């Protein structure tokens, strides 16, 4: 199997989490969300986080972004401890966070404009160039409410990329998109990533999406959230959807599903509803593997429908 040998992007950074714990509340009402989470976002690689519903993936993102402080443990970017949010670590949110009162152009150019790094002609050129890359050059003057869901995600993607962040944190960014748009977005995203080789963290509830995109796959446990296993995904790049039929892909999928299955069994024993869904889906895995599929679930918070990867529901 071909290893990913592409060199990381110039501004890519390395981010790491060491023994991070996060608890909410106090005394008897304490809720432990993250427990001893340690992993590294390697420079210029795409790390994908998968884990059961409500396991604290969003909390993880918030801690990495600096919106929330860990109760204990250490988060660092290129060796420097993270103390708050900043343009070197950008989050692309689950739901669009484009400012509704700004046009696409104003939204995308926001970062460099407020930091006064670029202005006038230069800012306009850079912005338009990025918009062109994601096919939005004709929508520069439109407000987010005039864009489709997929366009909003693309605008959001370039609004983050224009800042050349050291790390991009993607919090289930394609959730809620219909199946067609979602696979298109996966293609756009994987191309952008392969072109820029930034350090990316991608959180998803869809195992198939995760494996398709990932260089490394981090599987999380539930209640509290810990790192269960880190798997290397050595599928060839540039990635094509056809990779999803390859035996290597299926091997990774099988292994990941088994790990997730174990977790689901534990949750099931603890009385979690979604675990039952997962188990049902898992039992269908055999037939799934027999016929490789191209379509994806739409991920709109649905219960398990077709694949074992959609065990999640918020």
């Amino acid at each position, binding site marked *: 199997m071909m290893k990913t040998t592409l060199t990381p992007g110039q501004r890519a950074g390395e981010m790491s989490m060491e023994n991070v714990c996060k608890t909410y509340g106090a005394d008897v009402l304490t809720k432990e969300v993250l427990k001893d989470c340690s992993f590294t976002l390697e420079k210029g690689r795409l790390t994908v986080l998968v884990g059961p519903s409500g396991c604290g993936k969003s909390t993880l993102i918030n801690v990495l*972004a600096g*919106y929330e402080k860990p109760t204990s443990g250490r988060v660092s970017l290129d060796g420097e401890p993270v103390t*708050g*949010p*900043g*343009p070197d*670590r*950008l*989050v692309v*949110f689950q*739901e669009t*966070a484009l*400012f*509704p*009162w*700004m046009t696409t152009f104003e939204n995308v150019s*926001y*970062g460099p404009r*407020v*930091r006064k790094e670029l202005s006038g002609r230069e800012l306009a050129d850079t912005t338009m160039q990025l918009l062109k890359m994601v096919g939005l050059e004709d929508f520069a003057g*439109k*407000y*987010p*409410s*005039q864009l489709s869901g997929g366009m909003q995600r693309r605008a959001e993607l370039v*609004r983050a990329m224009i*800042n050349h962040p050291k790390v991009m944190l993607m919090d289930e960014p394609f959730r809620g998109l219909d199946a067609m748009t979602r696979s298109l977005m996966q293609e756009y995203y994987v191309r952008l990533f392969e072109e820029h080789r930034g350090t990316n963290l991608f959180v998803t509830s869809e195992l198939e999406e995760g494996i398709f995109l990932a260089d490394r796959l981090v599987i999380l446990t539930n209640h509290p959230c810990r790192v269960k296993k880190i798997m290397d995904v050595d599928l060839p790049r540039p990635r094509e959807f056809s990779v999803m039929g390859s035996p290597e892909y299926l091997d990774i999928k099988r292994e990941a599903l088994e790990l997730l299955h174990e977790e689901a069994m534990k949750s099931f024993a603890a009385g979690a509803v979604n675990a039952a869904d997962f188990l049902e889906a898992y039992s269908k895995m055999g037939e799934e593997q027999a016929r490789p599929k191209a379509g994806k679930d739409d991920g709109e918070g649905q219960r398990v429908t077709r694949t074992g990867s959609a065990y999640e529901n918020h």
Partner: protein
Amino acid sequence: MNDRISRALAGIKNRTRSRTFWRGIFSLTVFTLLWELCTYLKAPIIGNVPAPSEVVSTLAVQLHNTYYWLSWKDSMIRIFTGFIIAQIIGVPLGLFLGANDRAREVLFPIFEIMRPVPPLAWVPVSVIFWPSAEMSMIFVTFLGAFFTVVLNIVEGITSIDVRYIRAAHSLGSSRSDIFWRVLLPASLPSVVVGMTVGMGITWAVVVAAEMVASKTGLGYLTWRGYVAGEFPLIVVGMMSIGIAGYFSSALIRLVGSRFTPWLKTR
């Protein structure tokens, strides 16, 4: 520019042609005819109301009367003076309270207590408090718009989705960027709603205040119709207040939509 005018005209033409428009005309006509018929037949209760024909002839006389137009002018001046002062004080105060948690915790209880008091209940106090009747009327119109505006802005700012603020922080915004580029525009729709509602309240308040404390204005005009037994004049006064209120609110909405262009872009 010409293009815009012709498009606007086409819009008006379309609306005139539409079924909705003619249905509206139809219902108004039927309403007027029924009203006329009821007064003609001396139907109970409604029979005492002046007939539309009388109202129209009184209106025709009033339209040539300087006093009638002075009533418009005086009410309008009171409305807009009170309203504009309420915005000048209310908008910055609302923004301040919305953006500053501590200030809100300290000052907001005062608003919570004052808010349920209907502005009309302020009329006697303000007549005593202010040296002139004019000032007391402007004061109550001010109150009518002030609370609504402040409360709407505070509500607008405190309900801003935290994702916008987080995104703005992440992208490197300074505190003033957050205020001017996020909090302010995000709360603008609530400001416009507050202004529109406030304008409605303002008219209710000024009419009552004029009946009590004034010798001019549309409210007084209506009251004089009652006192002098000129019943058609009452109806003329009522209709004038309705029209004045409608156009003031329409003006606010027009100005408001200029400031919030992203809201009507479907």
